C-alpha cells in the first residue's frame, strides 16, 4: 500500500520512495536531473548530517547529498 506523497526530507530514515515531482526551479533543476533524480526514480533516505543538514540519499546505486531545502522540494511517494 503506497503511502501519501510527501517531501523527500520527511521520509523516515532508511525508507525507499518513488519521486513523483521535482519542484526545484527549472534553472537549478538541471544537475539534479543529470545526477539521475527523475520523476519515477526510486530513492532512499539514508541519513541526515550530524548538524541536521545536509541529507544523504541513495539513488541509482550511489550516495548523494542534498541540502534539506532542496530535498523539501522533491516530492516522493513511499513504497
Amino acid at each position: 500500500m503506497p503511502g501519501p506523497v510527501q517531501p523527500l526530507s520527511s521520509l523516515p530514515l532508511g525508507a525507499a520512495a518513488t519521486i513523483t515531482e521535482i519542484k526545484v526551479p527549472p534553472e537549478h533543476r538541471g544537475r539534479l536531473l543529470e545526477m539521475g533524480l527523475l520523476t519515477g526514480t526510486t530513492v532512499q533516505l539514508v541519513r541526515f548530517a550530524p548538524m541536521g543538514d545536509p541529507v544523504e540519499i541513495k539513488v541509482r546505486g550511489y550516495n548523494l547529498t542534498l541540502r534539506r531545502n532542496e530535498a523539501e522540494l522533491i516530492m516522493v511517494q513511499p513504497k
Partner: protein
Amino acid sequence: MEPNNNTGIQGANKMPGTGTSDIPQSAVRNPQSFVVLTGNPNSGKTTLFNALTGLRARVGNYAGVTVERKEGKLRGTPEGTDITILDLPGTYSLSPQSLDEQVARDVLFQRLPEVPAPALVVVVVDASNLERNLYFATQVIELGHPTFVALNMMDVAEQNGHLIDTDDLAKALGVPVFPLVASASQGLDELRRAIVQSVKGGTKRVLPRLFCELPEGFGREIDTLAQSLKKSFNQRQTSAHAEALLVLCDEKFLLGSAGYYSDEIKNAVAETRKRLEAAGVDWRSASIEARYARISAMQQAVTTDSGAGQETFSDRVDRIVTHKFWGMVVFIGIMALMFLTIFTVAKWPMDWMQSAVTWFGDKVGAMIPPGDLQSLLVKGVIQGVGAVVVFLPQICLLFLFIGLLEDTGYMARAAFLMDRLMSKVGLHGKSFIPMLSSFACAIPGIMATRTIETPKDRLVTILVAPLMSCSARLPVYALLIASVFPHRAVMASITMLSMYLLGIVVALLMAWLFKKTLLKGGTPMLVMELPPYKRPLVKTVMRHMWDRSKLFLQRAGTVILGICIILWFLATYPKHPEISQKFATEKASLEKSFGEKPTEEQKAQLSSLEIQESGEKLRQSFAGKMGRGLEPFIAPLGFDWKMGIGIISSFAAREVFVSTMSTVYNVADSDDKEAHTKALAQVLREQKKPDGTPVYTTLTSISLMVFYVLALQCVSTVAVVRRETNSWKWPVFQWVYMGVLAWVLAFVTYQGGRLLGLG
C-alpha cells in the same frame, strides 16, 4: 531515432593553435597521437592516468584559467610510437556546472586552440556506479570521436553483486569496452595495446547516434537544428546532432559559448524552445529523461545481480563515520591527528633545513670576501629564501593529508559533516578543509580550493583563508606572550587561544560579508556525491603531494626571491661608513687587549660589539627609516618605529619578525630557540620609553598580536593567490582589506584598552 549518418564529421584536423599555456606546444607534436581521458569524478580516472603514463606527467594550467591540465606520455608503447594522454578534469555531464567541467566540454568540442583534436577519446566508467556514469559516457560517444569505454572498478561492482557482460555493453554502446581494475593494474595491457593500435590504424569514427528516444516532434527539431549547425560549421569534427541536443536542452550552453554561435542559430534555438513549450514538451528535462530511460534499460540488460551484499562496505563504514555522534568524534580525531602530525613530524625536517640553510650560508660566506655580494647572497638570498623554504615540510605534509583525504573518499564526508556550519556564512561544505588547512599554512589551503565548483565561493574561501593563524605566526605570538606573561601559563594559554579564535571569527564574518556584498550570490546548491571509500594508492597520493609542492615552489619561488632581495636592500642601505668605522676602532682596541688566546669573556665582548654594530646599521637603514616613517601611522596602535621595522621585514614570512627584533634590540641569536625567545622576551620587557614607562605593555603586545592575526604579511600567499586567481586584482585587494582590518582592530584594541584604563 537514428539521425542522418552523413554528418560530414571527417573534417581536417585542427592544427595546434597559438594559445599560451603552461605546457609547451611541443608536448603535442603529433596531433594524430593525442588521446583524451575523460569520465565522472571518482571513476578512477586519475588512477588510470597514472597507471598509463607512469610518473612523467606534466602539470600546468589551461590558458587563462586555473584549471589543472595534466598530460603524459603513454608508457610501454612500441618504439617510435609517441602517444600523449590528456587527463581531463572529472565531469558529470556536458552541461558544465563548474569551470573544470566547462574546460572538459570545450576540449571534447575542440574549442580550445591550444588542444589538438583527439585521435581517440577514452571514457572511464565506474562499473559499480554504472547508470550515472553511462549518462556522461553516452553523451561523449554521441560526439562521434573514436571512443573507447574503460570500464573501471570491476572488482567493486562484483563485490556489490553486479556482474556486467562487457560484450553486451560494447554492443549496446557501439564502442569497444575494456574491463579494468586500474588500482590493481588489471586489464591495463589490453587497453594500452588497443590504444596504440587505434592511434596507429586510425579507429573508425563512431556511427553518429543519440542514446535517447525523443518524442517525434522533438526529434525533428533536433534534425533541423543539426542541419543549421552543419551549415555554419562546415569543418566539424563532432556530431551535429549531439551538439544540437546540447544547444537546445542546456540553458547555459549558449551563454557559456559567447561569440561562438551566430545570431541565426541563437534565434533558431529560442524559437525551437518556444515551439516545444507550446507543444507541452519540457525541453530542459526531456532529453535527460529519455537518456536515463535508455541507460536503465541498457544497464538491466547487461547486468546480472547476484543479490550479494545489499549493504556495501562503504555503507557500513559510513554508519560510523557520518554518525550523528561518532561521526563528529572521528572527524575531530582525524583533524587532530593531522595537525599533531604536521606540528610534530614536520618539526624535524624543518630543524634540519634550518641548519642546512645556516650551514650553506656560512659556506657561501666563507667563499666570498666580505662585502655587498656576500651580504646579498648570505643575508638576502639564502637566509631570506631559507626562512620561507623551511616551511616546505609542513606544506608537503599538508598536501599529503589533503591527498589522502581525497583519495580515500573521506573529503566528501568532511564536507557533508561541515556543510551546515559553512552554509551559515553562505559557503559550501567544501570550503571547510581549505580553511582548516590554513591553520598550518594558507598556501596548501588556497591551492585546495580548486575543488570548490562555484568561482565566487572559491574566491571568498581564498580571501578569508589567510585569516586563520598559520604556523608562521606562532613564533610571533610566543615571543609577545612571553614578554607580557612570562610566569603565568594560564594567561598565556588564554591569550594564544584568543588569537586563534579571533582569526576564525573574523574569517567567518568576512566570508559572510563578501557573500552579501562584493561577491554576492546565494549559498551554492549542494549536489555532492559521496563516493565509495577506497584504499589510497601510495602512488596517487605521493604524486599529488609532489605536483602541488612543485607548483608552490615554482609559483612562489621568483616572487619570494625578489622580495627577499628588496628586503635585504632595505635593511642594508644606505651604508653608514662612520658606523662601521666606529665599531672597527672599538673592535681593534678590544682585540689589542687580548692575549695570545682570547678568553671566553673577551670573545663574548667581541660578538656583543658585532651584534651592536648590526643593530645600529639596521636602525640607520632604509628599513629603519621606513619604520620611523611608519611610526605616525602605527603609533595609534601603540607601536613604535622599531616594531615598524619588524612589521616591514616580516613580509617575507611572519616569523622573521622574531629574528628582526633580535637584531633591532641587539640580542644574540642562539641555536636554542626556546632560550632565544626567553632572552628576547626579557629584553622586550626591559625596553623603556623616554618617560620611563615600558614600551611593551600588555596592551601594546596584544595589539601587535591582533595586527599579526589579521594582516596579510606573507609574500608566498600573495604569490599563490595571484596564480590561483589569475590576476593581481585579488591579491592586492586581499592585502589591502586585511591590512585595513588589522589596523582598525589593533587600533580598537589599543585605544579601547586605554579607555578602560588598561596598559
